[in-house]
């Protein structure tokens, strides 16, 4: 009897170790009007002024692959940090790779992720996390909102600062990008996800006047911030 159990256990172990798994790498590339986004460089904006972007980063959460109604979660939280990447053209073209492994081989039909920290985690604080966690960043929590800062987008317009900081559960958004993704055993499939930053700034059909309203982070004035987070759906594309 014991031998039979051991045999079954061995077979089960063998089957588990034989399951075909691969990895997917999400290659986030920041662009502006279709061109690689290089922070600090002048960018065409409204007719009477140009801008330069200095900061663009955001949390992605509940990262998952989809297959029909099936959702395969890859990671609870991650951080896309163009701010510390896109300071050269070379880096901007290369983008940022977030790789997730141990994915069952097969064909998937899309990627899903949230922009920001989901409500279930937004009751916590950076101090609750070890320094290895993206959520430990002390600059990404706003005491007055009792919320993580989901995304920072900032720059200069004619030398004057402007910024968008999003946060609070109301501004958490989840996006699904349809794309066939084939995971094969012991291989890493790469999906290029492009975020066009100019598209983030289109409100009601025209570019937002960041010189007129430079500070956008007031939870009592969610209008511009809602526009901003809603724009992610059109600003993202996958290749």
């Amino acid at each position: 009897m014991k031998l039979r159990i051991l045999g079954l256990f061995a077979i089960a172990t063998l089957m588990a170790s034989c399951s075909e798994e691969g990895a997917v790498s999400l290659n986030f590339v920041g662009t502006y009007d279709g061109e690689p986004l290089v922070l600090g460089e002048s960018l065409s904006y409204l007719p009477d002024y140009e801008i330069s972007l200095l900061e663009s980063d955001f949390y992605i959460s509940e990262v998952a692959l989809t297959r029909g109604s099936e959702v395969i979660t890859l990671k609870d939280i991650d951080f896309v940090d163009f701010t510390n990447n896109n300071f050269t053209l070379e880096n901007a073209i290369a983008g940022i790779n977030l790789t997730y492994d141990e994915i069952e081989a097969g064909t998937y039909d899309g990627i899903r992720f949230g922009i920001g920290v989901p409500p279930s985690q937004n009751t916590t604080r950076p101090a609750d996390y070890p320094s290895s966690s993206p959520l430990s960043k002390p600059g990404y929590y706003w005491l007055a909102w009792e919320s993580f800062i989901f995304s920072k987008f900032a720059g200069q317009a004619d030398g004057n600062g402007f910024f968008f900081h999003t946060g609070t559960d109301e501004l958490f958004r989840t996006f699904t990008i349809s794309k066939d993704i084939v995971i094969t055993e012991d291989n890493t499939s790469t999906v290029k996800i492009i975020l066009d930053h100019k598209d983030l700034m289109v409100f009601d059909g025209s570019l937002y006047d960041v010189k007129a309203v430079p500070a956008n982070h007031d939870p009592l004035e969610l209008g511009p911030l809602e526009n901003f987070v809603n724009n992610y759906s059109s600003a993202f594309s996958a290749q």
Partner: protein
Amino acid sequence: MKLSLFGISIFIVLSLGACKDCEEPVDLGVSLTHIEYSPESYSVEVFPEFPVLEIPSDNELTYDGIRLGQHLFFDPILSADSTMSCSSCHFPDKAFTDNLGVSTGIDGIAGTRSSMSLVNQAFYNTGLFWDGRVGSLEEQALLPVEDPIELHNNWIELIDKLQEHELYQELFRKAFGIEHSGEMTKELAAKSLAQYQRIILSGNSLFDQTLRGTSSLSDEALEGFNMFFDFPDTKDAECGHCHQSPLMTDNTFKNNGITGVEDLDDYVDKGFGALTGNPLDNGKFRVPSLRNIELTAPYMHDGRFETLEEVIDHYISGGHPSPNKDPQIIPLTLNEVEKANLKAFLLTLTDTSYLDNELITNPFN
């Protein structure tokens, strides 16, 4: 011919092997085993709102480890001419600053940067010093000893002195269990200094007590608090972007607009940019914690502002233009009452209760 070559080779190999035995014996120094070694773990009381204190596994805190670091910190033996110690520029009652714009080392050479507060450094996991050039307290502790504008010593001579010193023979033995004075090294000295600095914590100010509900701010300070953190229905002073609770820093490096330049290469002191090589980081410096800001004047990395009023006025102005000035530094419209309220809040961030810990104060007093 082949045989003689083989013979020569064998001779050389044997000779080299034999020379191992001819090496000068290592000077172990005096035996220390008569001194008791019984390390006791030191448990740090971290304030409840603070992050987890992450301690390197190869440098756990012990009472004797901290005590050694404490002695080294306050002992002028660390400088080449035995006139200055770490504490010459880091006064405990001034939140471990020296109240000078820039500090001066043993040769009378003024540095270019202000003495940083050492409070809560244990949580600065993104790089220490104003420019973030080292990653740990253990690495940090090695540098000021040999810095020509600080203690201008060299570790070899310093360790020689310490090995001869009976007090330090005992302190090193008790801290690290070494068996001979020859095992006293700069690495162990740095570890002990790191242990000492790691326990300097401040988080029981009136501000903290108010958040815990055990005390309350004055009306003025409360108004300043609301402005500082941009609570709804108050004027925003935009401070909390970089000085976020509980550490009152976001642990990053920023250009806060104190120096105007047209070109990023024009910064005389490139700060963080000198470390990263990224021109967009030029002129950026560590965002300092505002804890104990009342005690740490003058302000900024170069000590250019004497008073908190000057600091507040700087931020109201929106700073000097430069291509990488932080976008959150924008002109503000605060009136005199609002400025006073903001200052009133800043003064609630003072907490020097760490001075009650006898492992932190000067052991030679």
